[in-house]
């Protein structure tokens, strides 16, 4: 346990330093998110409709996308691109030849990157808040806030474990870019990034709600907007934890299999 914490801590420190050194990238991500947020806010505010939008009023929609920025900053744990590149160019060898667990190394790095990333995001988040505060919905009790924070942890871990799992495909195939793009496509739609999941047809709601993609973005937003409570909320947490554990063990399995077929040179 102490060794694992030491590993996470070492990679956390290294990654925070790296992120601070290359902060230009973080600013570009933030600018991109602000642009997307502005577009979605204007899109929904100019929507001509009679009544509510799948149970959302206009302020709730703005809040959905606004809190979505925070969810994104905190939970987008996507080591897929970096790991699959490391597997392809052979630099993964630096981990597998050392007596450290790759899983915890990456966890430390992700926490490091997201700590700095979230701090930068928060600055812009507060600036945007000043402009849109009149449209936002705030009725979160302390209990709901705690549940919301817990859901952020679940979403981060689902993203992380799923990314680790799909990055192992790089052991067998060359074109991992296509897998990454496919993952992004499915997550954008079924994760609730483009439109809230409540906009999906009624017949598809049950399926969409147990798919792992909901636990990659939308879940904390549903909690924030008070759309989840009681037993359905508990069930959702159970499903989220199920996906974390499942992806973790699948990753372990495919990682071991992948190492057996892996060849690298010149490292």
């Amino acid at each position: 346990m102490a060794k694992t914490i030491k590993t996470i801590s070492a990679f956390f420190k290294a990654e925070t330093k790296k992120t601070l050194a290359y902060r230009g990238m973080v600013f570009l991500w933030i600018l991109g998110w602000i642009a997307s947020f502005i577009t979605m806010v204007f899109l929904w505010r100019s929507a001509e409709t009679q009544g509510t939008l799948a149970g959302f009023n206009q302020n709730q929609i703005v809040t959905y996308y606004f809190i979505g920025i925070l969810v994104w900053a905190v939970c987008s744990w996507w080591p897929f691109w970096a790991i699959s590149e490391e597997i392809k160019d052979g630099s993964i060898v630096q981990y597998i030849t050392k007596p450290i667990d790759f899983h915890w190394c990456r966890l430390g790095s992700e926490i490091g990157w997201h700590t700095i990333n979230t701090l930068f995001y928060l600055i812009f988040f507060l600036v945007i808040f000043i402009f849109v505060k009149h449209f936002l919905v705030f009725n979160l009790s302390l209990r709901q806030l705690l549940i919301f924070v817990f859901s952020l942890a679940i979403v981060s871990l689902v993203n992380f474990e799923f990314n680790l799992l799909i990055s192992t495909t790089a052991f067998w195939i060359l074109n991992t870019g296509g897998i990454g793009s496919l993952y992004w496509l499915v997550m954008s739609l079924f994760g609730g990034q483009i439109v809230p999941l409540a906009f999906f047809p009624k017949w598809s709601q049950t399926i969409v709600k147990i798919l792992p993609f909901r636990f990659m973005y939308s879940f904390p937003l549903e909690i924030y907007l008070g759309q989840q409570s009681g037993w359905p909320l508990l069930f959702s947490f159970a499903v989220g934890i199920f996906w974390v554990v499942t992806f973790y063990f699948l990753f372990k399995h495919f990682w071991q299999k992948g190492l057996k077929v892996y060849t690298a040179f010149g490292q």
Partner: protein
Amino acid sequence: MRVKRYLKLFWAFFRFSFEAETEFRSNLIFWSFENILWMILGITSIHLIFGQVEAIAGWSKNEVFLVLFVASLFHDLCWTLIFRNLEAFSRLIRKGELDNALLKPVNTRFLLSFKILEFDHYVRIALELFLIYKYIILTTGYFSFTNVLAALFLFICGFLIFYSIFFALTVTNIWFINLANLIDFFHTVKDLGGKPIDIFKIKRGFLYFFSFVLPVGYIATFPTEALMGEIEVSKIVLAPVLAILSLWASQKLFNFALKYYSSASS
């Protein structure tokens, strides 16, 4: 003579890129298929939105579809012609290998902008052209070549404007070193243009900003208005002015930035 030389060079780039792509045929087929999936995602999104609303800023569902298909065409042309090149340009700066391109006896900007071409967007481009034609008929009830010419003119100007903006942003790598996610940022800018810019009408400042400063309206909204025969003359007149201005400004920035470039002895 000069034009002929560059056309010949472009043809050579085309051939090499095509040969490189067809070397990995399964990859080409996979990406062509996946690009169509992305298009289906765009269509699904609009269906989901219009499942709840009747119109967006005065634009009906079919009109918004037309905007989507024009924006998708813009997206595909960006990938076919410039994005891979700008990605490579960005990498050359980061690795300090740009002098390889600077020392070649050819216009550096031309070389950096068109050396690599992508071929997995052709199926989608064909599909988009068909859908644009279909939705012109659906929204207006007729097909006018004059409208298509006006739309094409605006589209080309829009493409030149954003090619210049993206090129200029890539040049900033010389100062900021590790902007490895520039292409993702370009996507966001391009996505802004995939919605009718009339959504910004509720705040005039935003509308002017996205019409004239970062003129995303030229990506899809204005060409679509032209296709529907509803374009204002002022937008047509302004388009080449903005295109020339942005080409000129990006070239100036490129020349200026090169003074700060340091190589890694490549």
